[in-house]
Structure formats: C-alpha cells, structure tokens
C-alpha cells in the first residue's frame, strides 16, 4: 500500500469581517474543496473567523530570514517616513 501523503496547504483566517487575514497554520488536503472544509473543522471550531483562505504551501514565496538585513535595507535610512521626524509647535492641534 502506497504511503501517499496529501499536499500541504497554508490556512489564513479573517477573524471578523473587515479585518486582515492571518496565518493560523497548515493542513493536508487533496484539493481546494477538501482544504477549505478541513480548515474550517480544524481552525474555526469556535467561530474564530468570518472567512478562510487556503493556498498550497509551495505557492508561497518567502524572503530569507538570513538576508533580512540586506533585504530590508532600503527602508532603514528614510526616517522622514515617520511623522515624528517633523518638528511641529505644540500649539498646533489635530495634525
């Protein structure tokens, strides 16, 4: 008997309507329908979500943690992207 392991899927749950989807874990399933149903049974037994995304694990492209420094380098030296960079008199309200 062949030991055929089913493909791995990643599961994302939207906690409530309007919120961002969050990764909650993974599971095994043969197709998208089974993946969705398994995700529902496994990750939302207590109304944890209003919507679920599933995507095959090997379709996810990740940056490499080891390259974190160089990869994110361009965003490190532009402190003027933060509001605190700009000096404004305390008298100015609602800015």
């Amino acid at each position, binding site marked *: 008997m062949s*030991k*055929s*392991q*089913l493909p791995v899927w990643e599961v994302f749950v939207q906690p409530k309507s309007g919120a961002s989807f969050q990764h909650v874990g993974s599971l095994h399933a*043969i*197709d998208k329908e089974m993946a969705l149903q398994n995700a529902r049974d*496994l990750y939302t*037994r*207590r109304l944890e979500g209003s919507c679920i995304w599933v995507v095959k694990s090997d379709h996810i492209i990740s940056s490499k943690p*080891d390259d974190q420094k160089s990869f994110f380098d361009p965003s490190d030296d532009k402190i003027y992207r933060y509001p605190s960079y700009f000096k404004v008199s305390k008298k100015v309200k609602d800015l």
Partner: protein
Amino acid sequence: MTDNYEKNFQKKIDSGKKIEPKDWMPDKYRLHLIRQISQHAHSEIIGMQPEGNWITRAPSLRAKMVLIAKVQDEAGHGLYLYSACESLGITRDELIDQLQTGKAKYSNIFNYPTLSWADIGVIGWLVDGAAIVNQQSLRGTSYGPYARAMVRICREESFHQRQGYEIMSKMSNGTKEQQQMAQDALNRWWWPSLMMFGPHDADSAHSSNAMKWKIKRETNDALRQIFLDRTVKQADLIGLTIPDPDLKWNEKTKHYDFGKIDWDEFWQVVEGNGFCNKERIANHIKAHKEGIWVKQAALAYAKKMEN
C-alpha cells in the same frame, strides 16, 4: 563558520526572539524539537483512545456531546502540532511511521485503562490539568510555530479541565457508589499524573540544552509543583482524598510536600509494559489501514477532476 552561526542563534534566543522555520538552527535543536513536538502530537492523538472508549457509554446525551467535542479537540491539537513539526523538515508519513514502529513515544499516561465513567472526569481534571501547566509554560518556547500552536491549544484546553472537574464534583456529591468510583479513579490516576512531568530534574536526560535553547522554560520539578499546589485545593473542595499519606503543606516553602514517586513503574510503562501500550498502537495502525481507502478515493477523484 558554524561557530558564528551558533553564536548568533544563541544571541537571538537570549534576547527572547523566536526561531522561525527558515532560520538557521543547530541540528541538535532541530532534532530535539522534532522529538518533543512529535511526542506531544502523538500524545494528543493516542489520548483520544482512552476517552473515546466512553463515548458510547456516556451517562447522558449532554455528557456524550461534550465528550465528543473534547475528543475532536484532541484530534485538532494533534494536527496543529503535526503541522508545527512538519515545518522542521520532516513529513507526516515519517512521523506516523515513527509512532507505529515505537521509535517515537507518546505520553505514558495514555497507557493506563479507563475503567469507569469517573476516569473520564479524572482525565479532564488531572491529565488535562497537568498538560495545561506544561503547555502554558511552552507558550514561551523559542520555536515560533510550536509557541503559536501552544497559545491556540491553551485557549481550548481549559474547557477540557472544567468538563472533567464537573464530572468529579457531581460524582463525589452523588450516591455512595458514585463517590467510591470518583475516589477510586483519583487513586489510580494520581501518581501517573504526577509522572507526566517526567523524571526529577537531576535524572532528566533532555533538560540541559532544552533550557539553554529555551525549548523548555521551566524544569520538570517546578512544573510538577505548580500542578500539585493547584490540584490539592481542588480535591479538598469536592471532598476527595489525594492518595498520598506524606502530602503536607510546608509553611516554609509555601508549597505542598509529597511522597516518593514510583519511578520503576514509570520506566516499566515507558518500556512498553503498561496495561494498554500494545492496544493503543494496534488501534492506531488499524485505523490507518482501514481508512486508507478514503485517501485513495480522494486522490482518484482529484486526478479525474484534473483531466
């Protein structure tokens, strides 16, 4: 070269950062995690058997529905943990194979039989209670996927413990026979529950690196003491007696002192000589064999849809 990697790795751990699947990690760290997480996952799955044993004989429809939901949770917990474990580069098939060939262990406690309905109460109260103490501590473990699985499991597990305590308190307030059943179950499960935390720190084979790498956050003995202090009071409240003549409040340490644990029994069961070792694994193999057609049918269907 590796030295440098290892230094950076330890620095990251020391600063409280989590290690994620694609991060560099020492081989021994990876292996330790695979061993520990898979053992944890197997325990959830094998743990369904002693409880499943009572689903058809639950004393009321309510009790049956609650027990089914609980056993279903255990399956879910097993799957969260398998998926965390697989992120370390091992397949589910390999993990299942290790369990079925005896290479991987599961918690010893599930090699004891569930003889009466009170055993279901005591499992929820003590076995899940002990597991919660361990799992609460593991929310702070250094491997990200494991820590996240623990957060999720802890959230769900407290219903299990309350379910068990409710059974125990109903029975110990019930008829004489029910009281005796409750006390008998406590007598049989008390010591094995204390053993769940593993050998004393001085005799624990896996502790040293596990603490340095923050896989484990507290020692076996420290966790055992937390569990014990909590549980003694809970037993008092429902009029049950902990079967330990040496159990005594220690004013100095502010903890309960307790009697000697029979580690010979513990090792006997670990070695496979418990009441149910063979039955548990045989059932697991049988379930996989008898269920393989479902997988094959799903595969055949998926192939057909592709064409």
